[in-house]
């Protein structure tokens, strides 16, 4: 709940998007402060991924504003938003299978402005490979990687541009318990570096361990917002999210 001084990294207000008669995101509003990890929760179909797509430029909002570092980015093309410092991963992991790990990460930084000199770019790629635990795999084709390594590579590509804001769409989904611990540590280390993160996640242990605050959506609307522990015990949230059964995950 603590809000630092200055402009929030991300400020969403009055965001709305309908698909035909279905309002997938309805009057959504929240803000994320510098260095914060904010959880975006809600049952399947509640509009979380649509919200991420509206923020990252995949979809155009029908109404509302999305401010990144104070600048309205709603409706801008994805590539412009990416160059302004927003990076994301995808619900179904997306790596460039026909390229090796090094090229995958290079894709994340080669098109940012200003362009990095080649030697600096190579150094940064090495650092990132090391950071996500893929050191030594740099010439390995992405198609040959295991599931968690594909997730690592996707994260490294998102980090390559040194984003101000990172959107993680169920990045921890599908990991086994030990991989989950590694994943949580990795995201925590990003926070330590001052990266601001919006985390869409169903793994409750991870949400508790990582998120400073949470916003909960249901049927496109925000139904709760606040410190993680408070939100997760909120009666309305428990009802919407877990169908009335107490959180046990």
């Amino acid at each position, binding site marked *: 709940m603590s809000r630092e001084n200055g402009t929030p990294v991300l400020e969403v207000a009055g965001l709305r998007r309908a698909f035909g008669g279905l309002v997938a995101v309805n009057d959504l509003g929240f803000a994320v402060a510098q260095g914060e990890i904010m959880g975006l929760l809600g049952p399947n179909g509640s509009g979380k991924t649509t919200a991420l797509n509206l923020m990252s430029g995949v979809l155009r909002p029908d109404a509302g504003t999305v401010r990144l570092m104070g600048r309205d980015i709603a409706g801008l093309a994805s590539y412009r938003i*990416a160059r302004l410092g927003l990076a994301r991963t995808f619900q179904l992991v997306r790596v460039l299978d026909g390229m090796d790990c090094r090229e995958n990460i290079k894709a994340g930084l080669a098109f940012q402005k200003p362009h990095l000199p080649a030697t600096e770019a190579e150094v940064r790629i090495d650092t990132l490979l090391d950071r996500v635990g893929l050191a030594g795999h740099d010439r390995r084709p992405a198609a040959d990687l295991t599931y968690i390594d594909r997730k690592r590579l996707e994260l490294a590509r998102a980090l390559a541009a040194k984003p101000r804001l990172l959107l993680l769409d169920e990045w921890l989904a599908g990991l086994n318990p030990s991989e989950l611990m590694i994943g949580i540590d990795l995201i925590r280390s990003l926070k330590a570096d001052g990266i601001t993160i919006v985390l869409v996640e169903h793994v409750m242990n991870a949400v508790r361990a990582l998120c400073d605050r949470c916003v909960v959506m249901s049927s496109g609307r925000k139904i709760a917002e606040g410190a993680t522990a408070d939100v997760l015990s909120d009666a309305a949230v428990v009802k919407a999210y877990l169908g009335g059964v107490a959180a046990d995950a």
Partner: protein
Amino acid sequence: MNARAAGLGVLALAALVLLAFVPRLGNAYYLALAISLLQYTVLATAWGMFSGPTRYVSLATTAFFGIGAYTVAVLGEILPWPLVLLIAAALGAFVAAIVGLSTLRLSGVYFVIFTFGLTELIRQLVVWFEVNKSRVLGRYVFVDITQADIYWQLLALTAAVFLLGWLIARSRLGFALRVIGEDETVAKHCGINTTFAKVALFTISATVMTLVGAIMAPRWTYIEPSIAFNSMISFQVLIMALLGGAHRLWGPVLGAVPLTLLFELLSARFPNTFTIILGCIFLLIVYMLPRGVAGLFEKLSATAGGKATGRVAA
């Protein structure tokens, strides 16, 4: 790697010099065959420059080829030759940029159909204009260009296309196109202006195709829309590039050369059953070489070199 690139450069230059002497052989048949070979090599390589990395299958080759040929038919006698080529290139680039901007948002099969329709549209427009406005069915091409001139121009264009393709592959634009071909959504989120990258490459590729049409036009003394806009060219170029392997700059030439020779041989020996035999050969090619000849070479060299980069044949 640099020594290897330099070696390849020297080799290419030597080949270029040797090939420049083909018209000196004094054999009209060989010269005609060499012109066909170069024509399809340039067209297939230009096709692969755009469609290889992006995996957008274009059937618009004929449209641009025809624009080039018709520019010569209309302006060839009025203006100096270099200026005619320049105007043809500019026209091709202009049409390509407009088409690119309006269609490259389409994906998959919609793009294929559009490019095919585009060729028909342009052809019908030319027919309509010629019949109703200029009141001719075809045009005579009387320009002072010999077969040897055509050959040398095509050879120069071949060299230029390979140099251009090599430069693009090493550039940021070339890398952007590979990322787009892998996953366009990811490309956008990496900060790639995908529309610009695709339109730029489509325009470059189409300009080259237009130039081929313009250079080839004097080979016919008479041009009409069904000759200049013969949609078989689009399909042949597509098949050549796929046979060779469009994912490599040097791939399409590996398809263009054998297939041009094959067309030549089959149409001479079996004039009536030519297309049937061709159809069977295409089926075999697609079945046995899904990644083209270039893919086969890569696989062989990977096995021979014991490299562990076992790329899956897609």
